[in-house]
């Protein structure tokens, strides 16, 4: 496959086309889950645990059943009778749907109340009487591993809070490199517990029809087909009798990948009451019970030469998974793609160990624009490189230049086994440094430092790994992670494309239309993109981990090419020539050497239904399942410039430049928008977010007055730019970009702050870098206000 595109003035690929989906959102005509109202619909509210760890002594439903409008109360015991009290997680564990016997985290689902109105459901939930007997709580993952720690998961055979250990790389080679190393740095680095918090919370409407034994589930889902299969497995309904519809989704960021207990209970509720049941969580329920992200306690070591040549990397991580091992990762990789942590550099050896641990907290870990733990990996290595630079008294840009993988070494095999597809790292580094005026900034910093002012410059040169994935490596519960597209060209030359992905704001209705339009010589206005209905879309694994363009985008292009091959036969018939006498130019087939003899896709489509060549099947449709030969490796160089107020400790991000290389760009306007959004999330993570618990396991961050999201006032002005190194194996050369800014930016912010304070002996500050933390550092260093 080549990365060259059709040469044509009819170019729609790469154009900043206005989004086709926008008019409905701009006029209030978007159709999100909570906007859907079915006849006779009932509402569900969930009773949640106030304790982080407690036995359930008794549950009294009666007072709730006495509330006017309440139709049913469902408990874990009821589900047990149906064999539905537990469900499989995506990571090989099992998870309670409604608590049985005991609760394992605060806000865990204990009972559900179905009623004729939302108000009655909430009144009913408040009336359910649950008696608890509190148990000792484990909040700290390190304490969870101590021999006398209370065992949280009594249901498991293994009587330990240790879930699994995962190792990657070569321990012996790494140990040898460390033993021989001239310089070693070591640091403990935590990636805080954060939450994707899409603006639209999660929810569903389960509509079970007894007569037909058919379930329609409307649900806020990034992966509707995966939901269908999981539901078929969990609820034991025949899969063809399940239709999952994911309507417009108000942001996902990984939060809407897992199947949550509320969905399963709503299905049961609909079966019990014979009515459609709607459940929409509150913001508190969203923040406190649905999948969080990260919470990695990492220890990193780098072995290097005195000249700054990196040799080996050693990482040990304790991963806090909460009460169930439910993180959404492909089956084979318990720590996701965390072993991409050798980053953009020519390490010769690496050894990475991750220990996963149960605690009394909500389950999760993989979410929030992270491509399966790449965010943690990238933050770790980019932070560590700066610590090494500081140790060696080297400029961090120079240290990176010295160690970046050279362009002629691609495809590059990393010491943990990944094969990076393409990159021109030095070019991107120089481009970014020039664009921001790095030399001048360093000069300004030196002058300011001499005057006692605090200014810092932080660089992050990250490599992402996205587009899961080659099915030989990636599956979810055994289902291979390919993705799909189906195109139908109608007789009048208009087309519909359906895909197995599901956008939540990424602009698929536009970018996929551009891909198909480009490949078929149509206008994007004439290509309708549809996703999210499992009855109509071909099977796919959904949208997350920046995989849509690398997988379904490729499938769309390949599917269109399949159509073009059939179109060539019809064109030859229409032009009365041989297929090989034709060439595809400017979005049409023309006879070689006779450009005036040509046919457009419209003419071909019409002929496909009205005048097909003898012997050729009529119609113009195709389906393509794309199994990528490799992952794609987007990368970028991000540079932050900060000023720190000595009096208050406030960090002001003066400038932030993001130079991304995501290969071929399909719609630059949409790519820029994705980058802006991800940078803002990275900014929030670096400076304001951490979900913390008190010693009793009470979650202290359960709404937007505690979980801070930046507003337009705090958010920095983003500067964006690109270099373009196409992926050699993607049919369009595209690599995907949605998560890069969240993966790459936290290290740039933190590196900038540490850089501003490095002359005070500061080497590392854990996120979130709050004003108070900086203020304390300054006061402890004896800096005058």
């Amino acid at each position: 496959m080549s990365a060259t595109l059709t040469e044509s003035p009819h170019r729609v690929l790469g154009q900043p086309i206005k989004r086709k989906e926008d008019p409905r959102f701009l006029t209030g005509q978007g159709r999100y889950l909570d906007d859907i109202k079915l006849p006779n619909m009932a509402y569900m509210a969930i009773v949640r645990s106030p304790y982080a760890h407690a036995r359930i002594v008794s549950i009294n439903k009666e007072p709730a059943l006495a509330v006017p409008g309440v139709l049913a109360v469902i408990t874990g015991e009821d589900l047990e009778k149906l064999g539905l009290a537990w469900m499989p997680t995506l990571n090989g564990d099992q998870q309670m749907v409604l608590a049985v016997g005991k609760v394992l985290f605060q806000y865990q689902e204990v009972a559900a109340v179905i009623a004729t109105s939302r108000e009655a459901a909430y009144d009913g939930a408040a009336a359910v009487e649950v008696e608890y007997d509190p148990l000792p709580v484990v909040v700290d993952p390190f304490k969870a591993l101590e021999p006398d720690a209370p065992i949280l998961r009594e249901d498991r055979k293994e009587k330990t809070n240790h879930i699994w250990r995962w190792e990657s790389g070569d321990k012996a080679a790494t140990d040898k490199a460390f033993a021989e190393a001239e310089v070693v740095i070591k640091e403990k680095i935590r990636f805080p517990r954060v939450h994707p918090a899409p603006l639209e919370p999660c929810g569903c409407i389960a509509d079970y029809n007894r007569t037909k034994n058919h379930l329609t589930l409307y649900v806020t889902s990034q992966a509707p087909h995966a939901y269908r299969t999981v539901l078929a497995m969990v609820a034991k309904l025949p899969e063809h009798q399940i239709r999952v519809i994911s309507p417009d989704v108000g942001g996902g960021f990984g939060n809407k990948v897992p199947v949550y207990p509320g969905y399963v209970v709503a299905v049961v509720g609909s079966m019990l009451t014979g009515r459609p049941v709607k459940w929409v969580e509150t913001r508190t329920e969203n923040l406190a019970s649905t999948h969080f992200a990260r919470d990695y306690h990492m220890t990193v070591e780098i072995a290097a030469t005195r000249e700054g040549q990196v040799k080996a990397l050693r990482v040990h991580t304790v991963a806090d998974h909460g009460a169930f091992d439910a993180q959404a990762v492909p089956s084979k990789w318990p720590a996701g793609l965390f072993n991409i942590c050798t980053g953009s550099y020519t390490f010769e050896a690496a050894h990475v160990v991750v220990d996963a641990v149960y605690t009394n907290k909500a389950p999760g870990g993989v979410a929030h624009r992270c491509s399966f733990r790449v965010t943690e990996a990238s933050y770790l290595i980019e932070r560590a490189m700066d610590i090494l630079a500081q140790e060696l008294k080297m400029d961090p840009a120079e240290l990176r230049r010295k160690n970046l993988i050279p362009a002629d070494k691609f495809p590059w095999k990393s010491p943990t086994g990944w094969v990076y597809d393409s990159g021109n790292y030095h070019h991107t580094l120089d481009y970014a440094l020039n664009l921001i005026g790095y030399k001048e900034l360093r000069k300004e910093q030196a002058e300011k430092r001499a005057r006692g002012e605090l200014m810092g410059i932080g660089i992050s040169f990250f490599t992402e790994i996205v587009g899961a994935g080659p099915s030989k490596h990636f599956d979810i519960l055994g289902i291979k992670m390919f993705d799909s597209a189906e195109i139908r060209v109608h007789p009048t030359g208009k087309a519909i494309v359906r895909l197995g992905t599901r956008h939540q704001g990424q602009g698929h209705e536009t970018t996929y239309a551009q891909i198909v339009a480009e490949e078929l010589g149509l206008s994007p206005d004439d290509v309708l993109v549809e996703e999210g209905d499992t009855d109509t879309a071909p099977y796919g694994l959904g949208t997350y981990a920046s995989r849509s363009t690398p997988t379904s985008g490729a499938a769309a292009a390949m599917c269109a090419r399949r159509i073009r091959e059939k179109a060539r036969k019809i064109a030859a018939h229409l032009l009365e020539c041989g297929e090989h006498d034709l060439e595809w130019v400017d979005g049409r087939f023309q006879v070689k050497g006779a450009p005036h003899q040509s046919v457009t896709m419209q003419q071909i489509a019409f002929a496909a239904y009205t005048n097909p060549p003898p012997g050729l099947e009529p119609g113009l449709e195709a389906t393509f399942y794309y199994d990528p030969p490799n992952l794609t490796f987007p990368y970028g160089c991000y540079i932050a410039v900060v000023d720190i107020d000595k009096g208050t400790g406030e960090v002001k991000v003066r400038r932030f430049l993001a130079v991304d290389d995501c290969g071929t760009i399909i719609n630059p306007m949409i790519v820029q928008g994705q980058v802006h959004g991800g940078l803002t999330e990275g900014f929030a993570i670096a400076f304001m977010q951490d979900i913390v618990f008190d010693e009793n396991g009470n979650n202290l961050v359960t709404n937007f007055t505690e979980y801070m999201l930046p507003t337009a006032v705090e958010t920095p002005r983003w500067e964006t730019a690109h270099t373009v190194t196409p992926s050699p194996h993607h049919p369009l050369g595209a690599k995907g970009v949605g998560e890069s800014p969240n993966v790459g930016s936290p290290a740039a912010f933190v590196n900038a702050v540490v850089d501003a304070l490095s002359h005070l002996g500061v080497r590392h500050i854990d996120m979130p870098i709050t004003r108070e933390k900086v203020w304390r550092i300054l006061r402890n260093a004896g800096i005058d206000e």
Partner: protein
Amino acid sequence: MGHRIAVTINGQRYEAEVEPRLLLVHFIREVAGLTGTHIGCDTTSCGACTVILNGKPIKSCTMFAVQADGCEIRTVEGLAQNGELHPIQKAFWECHGLQCGYCTPGMLMAGVALLERNPNPTEEEVRRAISGNLCRCTGYQNIVKSILRAAEMMREGAGVASGSPVGSGSPAQ
């Protein structure tokens, strides 16, 4: 128990018997059936529910429907007139001021309220005016750009004369 109230939304009068605890946002979404106004939080933090009430932007999740009795409300559904988008809608489309679209109705109403009292705002004023509205997708930069662009279009009156009709996917500027 019910209270009879009458509220005018986008020029249309809605009368209903409501429970005293019914929030205005639920009245708008469920009684009037105008689901463009969204709900994103429980703590008056996100602004997804922003509407214009008697000329002022308010968070409709923080008001009971009974308190809005007799009021004039404008929601996102009332912005486009006769199939022609309001300049602020055109500007959001042109400047890529939305992604998932969930915050968008609230952002549009906060923006309209700003431009009605200050037709020529600075970037800082725009950022302050939408600081009660959270967006998880865009990083605000293109929202700010959109509102400034809308101000320009409204000042020129160009928004009314030369906008693109709803439904076309022509290249952005």
